[in-house]
């Protein structure tokens, strides 16, 4: 069956489904036999019972879904002050009974509908952003954090067709960790570029991104590399993330096995260049799924460094729940293998509200205006889909 026909059918069926990028196409997961809504009360049990040492498994012997940011904080013992919330679940996982491989070229013609999308509103304006920025800069001078990412959120009232959005987004930006979740009462559309964990057997990798450059006609891959190499601020930010991810992996890996496989390389996407490293390790025999999740999540590159003190600073500052943003989406197979991304560049649609969160880093030599603008550029690619 053609990808086009499969997508039309699934959309008409009104069944919940998930689409996740693979190396050469997409996988479609559906016919969910179980849906687990995660909370602080059941997440530990979920992680402790999900996988066994079973060697032979079917392709659908897995749970696919996401951990929200707050749940990941809970798992590592970080508390929250009271925040504004829309009561979106803290995490949801599905057990699929059907898996269909799709080609890379997703096409879907949405049935015509009346457009009801309002203008997006930002939750922190430039003035407030600058105030928070300066506060965090003082914290950096005092050594309480070395790098911290301020999150801003854009929201609007909207009614959208998630599959149409996802197909259009995949055309304009084919990201290696793209995914779509379509359920009855919510959807998530994402073009995440960042792999947080890929575990096969006892081998584990993480691929942090720190550094993004918008393409233009005069830039090619080697010029982009030169730009990052010469830019001391970007280099320092990236170095910090590399050392932090090495340390996160070292918590669960055999001493001496954690190695930087690719150090500060350029990955090219349709509109952007990313500054990327790849770090690999070999897991300790005794390490369980829950240990891996707790060591690696929430992903350091989108939080800042050091993780615990920076999370505390962020959570005390942010008035609104991050929901899925900077959580992780992916799957855990019944044999313990897993793949997770970092949820960024995503739209969450819930209760007829679409929300897009973005963040950029404060380091000692960053500038509030530039970072505020960078946030807007990151959000704009997604906001433009609503036009």
């Amino acid at each position, binding site marked *: 069956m053609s990808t086009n026909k499969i997508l039309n059918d699934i959309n008409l069926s009104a069944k919940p489904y998930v689409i996740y990028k693979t190396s050469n196409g997409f996988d479609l997961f559906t016919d969910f036999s179980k849906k687990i809504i995660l909370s602080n009360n059941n997440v530990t049990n979920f992680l402790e019972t999900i996988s066994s040492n079973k060697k032979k498994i079917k392709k659908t012997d897995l749970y696919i879904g996401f951990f929200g940011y707050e749940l990941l904080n809970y798992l590592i013992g970080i508390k929250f002050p009271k925040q504004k919330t829309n009561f979106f679940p803290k995490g949801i996982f599905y057990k699929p009974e059907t898996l269909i491989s799709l080609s890379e070229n997703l096409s879907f013609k949405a049935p015509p509908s009346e457009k009801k999308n309002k203008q997006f509103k930002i939750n922190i304006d430039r003035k407030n952003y600058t105030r928070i920025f300066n506060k965090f800069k003082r914290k950096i*001078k005092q*050594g309480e954090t070395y790098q911290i990412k301020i999150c801003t959120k854009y929201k609007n009232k909207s009614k959208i067709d998630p599959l149409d959005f996802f197909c259009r987004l995949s055309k304009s930006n084919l990201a290696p960790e793209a995914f779509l979740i379509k359920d009855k009462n919510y959807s998530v559309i994402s073009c995440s570029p960042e792999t947080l964990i890929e575990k096969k057997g006892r081998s584990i990798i993480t691929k942090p991104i720190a550094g993004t450059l918008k393409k233009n006609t005069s830039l090619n891959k080697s010029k982009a590399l030169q730009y990052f190499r010469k830019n001391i601020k970007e280099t320092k930010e990236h170095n910090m993330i590399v*050392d932090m991810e090495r*340390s996160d992996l070292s918590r669960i890996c055999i001493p001496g096995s954690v190695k930087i496989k690719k150090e500060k390389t350029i990955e090219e996407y349709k509109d952007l260049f990313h500054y990327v490293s790849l770090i690999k390790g070999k897991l300790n025999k005794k390490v369980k799924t829950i240990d891996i999740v707790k060591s690696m999540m929430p992903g350091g590159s989108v939080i800042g460094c050091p993780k615990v003190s920076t999370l505390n600073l962020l959570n005390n500052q942010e008035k609104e729940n991050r929901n899925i943003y900077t959580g992780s989406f992916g799957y855990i197979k019944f044999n313990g293998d897993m793949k997770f991304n970092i949820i960024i560049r995503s739209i969450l649609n819930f209760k007829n509200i679409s929300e897009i969160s973005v963040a950029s880093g404060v380091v000692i030599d960053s500038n509030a205006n530039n970072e505020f603008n960078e946030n807007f550029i990151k959000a704009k690619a997604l906001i433009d889909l609503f036009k």
Partner: protein
Amino acid sequence: MIYVIDHKDSFTHNVVHQLSLFDEVRCTNYDEIDNRYLKRASTIVLSPGPGSPKDYPITSSIYKKFKGKKKIFGICLGFQQILFCEGANIVQQKQIYHGFQSKVKVVSKNSVFKNKNIYKVGRYHSLKLEEPFYSKNFDITMRCVISGSAMALENNFDKIYGFQFHPESFLTINGNLLIKKILSA
């Protein structure tokens, strides 16, 4: 056995892996100290971490209790912690180094490192030692080639050592060698 006291830093487990090349290592958070490990350890390592030494009174009291009895080695915040316990002021520096590779030079004939050697090291610190600093048996044995700020301390009488830089960072060249020298000193 080496006991690493973790100040909830995101680099500590790089330190643990590096030390594991040479000895058995145990590590806990500073607010979950295991007294059996403290007792058993031949070396106590004070990890890097956020904030300033005055924020960690538990670590200070461990330092004071074991000074002269066990080898003590501090990295970054741990280095500052030792100096702080020896009466030094730890102050903000004008130029802040986070994720920065720079050169440090051995500046003492009494060092376990060869005088005038230069090392390329990774740095992550907002604060530094205010000088002049004097405490009995303590020497500042490495300095930043450019700013001159204190980068290593040694007290070979009490077997106390510290690096302001991060020997475990991938930005430090020959970090394992630097650690080996300290552990065998």
